[in-house]
């Protein structure tokens, strides 16, 4: 209980720090006001309109007051409309989040589906042919930039073989499952392969250690079959690093899949954010950062609980 209170306190501090920095950051952007006016495109050419606009964004208030307004708006969900007037910020973020979350989940799932069996087999025969092969392939994935992968796969799968659309549309799963699959397949793969490479490396090395533990020998001595030893006994206690990495990636992927999103014309949160920066949609960016911070903090919180499931010793805090 006290532990959770403490975690909660940390959560609050983190959120405070993030919102505060984000609110402050606007002041550090060069020519923020001019950029906003240019982005607004109209209604601001004369001084009066200009001032009206800037005042309406609280841009000329003292820092702390600006922060106050910012938090107030955040909490009351009064996020307003993008500067270009296209969309309410809340819609933009929730649409983007919808796409990015799905992409993240699919990417992670595929990455794990590839990484776990590969890592298990590599660890089982560590130093063997498959181990060395998978190591090389992992690094291949890790060191190939997403956009190169996206381009190459795109050329093959969309133009040459016409298996998947070149640009993905956000088709709902329940509306058209097959279209949904077709549209999300390539982005997912491009996202998943480098992840799979990294995950495999992590899990493999932990598994190699676990496989040397006494309790694995115990299991062998009981006559447990090899697959069962690997998946039933060794896997779960080896998942710590992987879970930690995957958890950190939740936040990173939700906001950071710009490359993949751009390559497949998917309008996820990452792409929206980067475009937002280019289009001087500072408020959209600010709020996105806060949302992503929340995603991070919440995942972390959940992962803490997940640790407890992975290893019951954590529950009583023995692993500290």
């Amino acid at each position, binding site marked *: 209980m006290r532990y959770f209170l403490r975690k909660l306190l940390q959560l609050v501090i983190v959120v405070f720090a993030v919102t505060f920095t984000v609110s402050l950051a606007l002041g550090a952007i060069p020519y923020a006001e001019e950029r906003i006016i240019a982005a607004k495109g109209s209604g601001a050419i004369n001084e009066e309109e200009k001032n009206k606009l800037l005042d309406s964004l609280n841009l000329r208030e003292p820092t702390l007051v600006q922060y106050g307004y910012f938090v107030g708006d955040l909490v009351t969900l009064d996020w307003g409309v993008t500067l270009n007037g296209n969309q309410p910020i809340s819609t933009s973020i929730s649409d983007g989040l919808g796409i990015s979350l799905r992409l993240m989940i699919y990417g992670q799932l595929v990455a794990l589906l590839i990484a776990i069996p590969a890592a298990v087999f590599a660890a089982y025969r560590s*130093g063997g042919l498959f181990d060395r092969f998978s190591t090389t392939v992992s690094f291949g994935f890790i060191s190939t930039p997403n956009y190169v992968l996206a381009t190459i796969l795109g050329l093959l799968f969309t133009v040459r073989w016409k298996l998947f659309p070149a640009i993905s549309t956000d088709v709902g799963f329940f509306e058209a499952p097959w279209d949904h699959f077709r549209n999300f397949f390539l982005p997912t793969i491009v996202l998943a392969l480098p992840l799979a490479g990294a995950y495999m490396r992590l899990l493999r090395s932990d598994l190699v250690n676990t496989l040397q*533990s*006494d*309790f694995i*020998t*115990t*299991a*062998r*001595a*009981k*006559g*447990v*079959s*090899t697959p069962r030893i690997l998946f039933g*006994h060794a896997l*779960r*206690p080896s998942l710590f690093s992987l879970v930690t990495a995957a958890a950190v990636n939740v936040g990173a992927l939700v906001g950071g899949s710009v490359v993949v999103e751009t390559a497949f014309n998917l309008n996820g949160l990452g792409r929206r954010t980067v475009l937002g920066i280019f289009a001087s949609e500072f408020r959209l960016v600010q709020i996105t950062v806060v949302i992503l911070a929340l995603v991070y903090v919440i995942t972390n919180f959940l992962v803490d609980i997940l640790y407890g499931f*992975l*290893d*019951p*010793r954590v529950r*009583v805090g*023995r692993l500290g």
Partner: protein
Amino acid sequence: MSTLQTAVRRETGTLLEIEDLATHFATPGGVVRAVDGVTFSLDHGQRLGIVGESGCGKTILSRSIMGLLPRRNVIRKGSVLFEGTELTTMSLKDRQKIWGAEMAMIFQDPMTSLNPVMKIGKQLAEPLRIHLGSTRENAQEIVLKLLQDVGIPEPEKRLEQYAHELSGGMRQRIMIAMALACGPSVLFADEPTTALDVTVQAQILDLIEDQCREREMALVLVTHDLGVVAGHTDQIIVMYAGKIVEIAPTATLFSKMKMPYTEALFQSIPKLADPSHTRLTTIGGRPPNLVAPPDGCSFSPRCPYATDTCTKVEPELQQAEPGHLFACHYPVGSDRWNEVQVSLGRRSGGH
């Protein structure tokens, strides 16, 4: 394999025959001759102790017999006949059928030997479900019975617990229960009490002994503590540098040890009967390097009785009396032995 069947089959004869067994490890530093030509046999229901210094190959010997060794960089020789079946050439699949069912093993550290993330109940039921194909309920029933047998209070509660929630003694009992689950005909216990308190150690040793007797199970008890084997075995093997240097019925060994190493080992134990500040006898030098063991008798560099012969000629196992073998040129009681005793100002039997 039901307990009844095993009981019938156990009536007579040899359970295990180990012939010139050797296990070497190819390491970057050279070939480690962890077990180097070991021959002995084990009868049904017999309790055998293996003692020796740390690193002399006790663990590797017991694992070599079971065939439970790392896959890589291991060089194995010799033969292990279990009930007349050769184990060394058996496929992994077939060995997995024997492990846990016919031969079981418990280890030194019960904390690390239990899966930290699997419930006790599930771990206990695993051998039953694998070897006997028990259903969940069926297995649970047997497990509860086993837990009672090994003296665990509130067995139902334990099934849902994890290893870390139990005391060291209880963990070792769980290990034992797990080993006993399928009614094996031999139990290898590798230093089962080293990590435990003396009080708990006594309980566990009693338990193992009781279970062996009850189930007519053979026991291989590996330890470096002569006190532990003294009370709980019928026969003892003393190992040094991967080889058997002495083998004798327990009582004989303690009363008529032949090998100077056994003697030294025995003398270095502080005894309750001795008054405080009694000076202990020590064995000088270092344990041998298993990559390049000394020529001749491996113990010769540390042996007070060693002569040139010892450093050149490796002693063969010779018989002192039936069932008592030793490998020494100048055994306890020999002339040379007496000479040195006198020169050291000691009389035989220690102090």
